[in-house]
């Protein structure tokens, strides 16, 4: 595999071709381009949509509160998938500091064991200030991984509270990881995050209270959703690997349900919308960044002196964006 870094091999065409060929460095580079809103990134993703088989991959979302064991469980799932001969790519999203935009991405700490295995590709991402549990480019990054031949893409969201439900628009199957002792069950039932779970993983089953939490969850499911599907509740110990095989089986049963019921079409439509949203946000960020700095500082200055209110300022900036677009840079 040629690893040369020269510019010629960085054209969207060559990068797309190398990604489809399974070149890991091309994949890594394209992810960076996408994250940074580089102009060639959208072109790469379009080319992949035209030339790669993007229908078969299954996206698995892993969400839940901080410390529940999402990363450890993702690691255990990858181990399990590898034993079954399946390749897996992982996206690990962590929050950016709201003050500096910087981030410490530490999830890889929990995934030390897959080095040297070409069947595994792991990428850490900052949410870059985006709310919702993912980053604006996560959907695109998952597409890149898919095009590189990963039929399973596991996406770990930032540690969620109650409202970070964006993963439901991207993943085929959302695994909600819960652990005993994180607050009472009323709290659980209030949370929007409960509604997006396709499978519940009650993790740290080696600890007191896990079995109780699992049975409480099961009892709360007396009303099943309109499509007649009741999310399974699986006890896992991500550390020891106990229950992880069963979790993977439950994930696959959920996917089979999607296929049999035809709901897979709905899931894929949602995914396309999520990708569209991400792409639009990217264009918007670039458009904002394309405003001349003198214009921007003038608007900011007027804002500070209260000559402009925030709404009029937004209008002014919007008009500048439109003028830029018409100018056809």
């Amino acid at each position, binding site marked *: 595999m040629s690893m*040369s870094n020269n510019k010629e091999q960085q054209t969207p065409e060559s990068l797309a071709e190398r990604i489809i060929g399974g070149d*890991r460095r091309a994949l890594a580079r394209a992810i960076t381009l996408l994250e940074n809103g580089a102009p060639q990134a959208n072109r790469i993703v379009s080319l992949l949509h035209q030339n790669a088989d993007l229908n078969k991959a299954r996206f698995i979302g892993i969400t839940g509160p901080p410390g529940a064991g999402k990363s450890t469980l993702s690691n255990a799932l990858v181990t399990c998938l590898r034993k079954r001969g399946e390749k897996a790519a992982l996206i690990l999203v962590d929050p950016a500091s709201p003050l500096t935009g910087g981030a*410490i991405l*530490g999830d890889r700490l929990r995934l030390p064991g897959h*080095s040297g295995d070409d069947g595994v590709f792991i990428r850490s991402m900052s949410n870059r200030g985006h709310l919702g549990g993912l980053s604006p480019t996560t959907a695109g990054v998952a597409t890149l991984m898919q095009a590189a031949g990963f039929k399973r893409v596991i996406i770990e969201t930032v540690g969620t509270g109650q409202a970070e439900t964006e993963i439901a628009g991207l993943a085929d199957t959302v695994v909600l990881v819960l652990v005993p002792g994180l607050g009472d069950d009323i709290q659980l039932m209030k949370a929007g995050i409960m509604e997006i779970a396709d499978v519940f993983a009650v993790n740290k089953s080696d600890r007191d209270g896990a079995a109780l939490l699992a049975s409480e969850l099961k009892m709360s499911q007396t009303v099943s959703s309109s499509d007649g599907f009741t999310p399974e509740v699986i006890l896992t110990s991500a550390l020891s690997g106990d229950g992880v095989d069963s979790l993977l089986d439950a994930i696959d049963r959920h996917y089979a349900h999607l296929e049999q019921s035809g709901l897979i079409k709905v899931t894929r439509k949602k995914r396309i919308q999520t990708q569209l949203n991400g792409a639009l946000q990217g264009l918007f960020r670039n458009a904002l960044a394309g405003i001349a700095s003198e214009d921007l500082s003038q608007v900011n200055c007027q804002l500070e002196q209260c000559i402009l209110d925030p709404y009029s300022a937004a209008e002014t900036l919007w008009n500048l964006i439109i003028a830029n677009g018409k100018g056809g840079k």
Partner: protein
Amino acid sequence: MATIRVLIAKPGLDGHDRGAKVIARALRDAGMEVIYTGLRQTPEQIVEAALQEDVNALGLSCLSGAHNHLFPRVVELLREQGAADILVFGGGVIPQEDIPDLKAAGVVEIFTPGTSTVDVVEFLNKHVNVK
């Protein structure tokens, strides 16, 4: 909108990652994205992570005394992978007399105990060019 991405890794067998964590936090506070991979990583693991994460720079921290072997090995592996553009720097308990050889081997800078984190931030801002 490009952000500097840095991998902070600890090769070698010592179990002290306080210094590495202090650096990681300082870089985050300077607006960088820091991938932290934890203790006892082999050069092979470190380089593979750096490639997957497509980082601009790679910081190695070592207190076990094995830096003379481990740091150049990381640089060598990066070169083998065609990733010599990733800037390698190091820190930890490293005797002055070892520094020239490490630099000759391709470690761009060595930060010894007592270095201010401000210097590390400045160093990266100066040497890393994110397009």
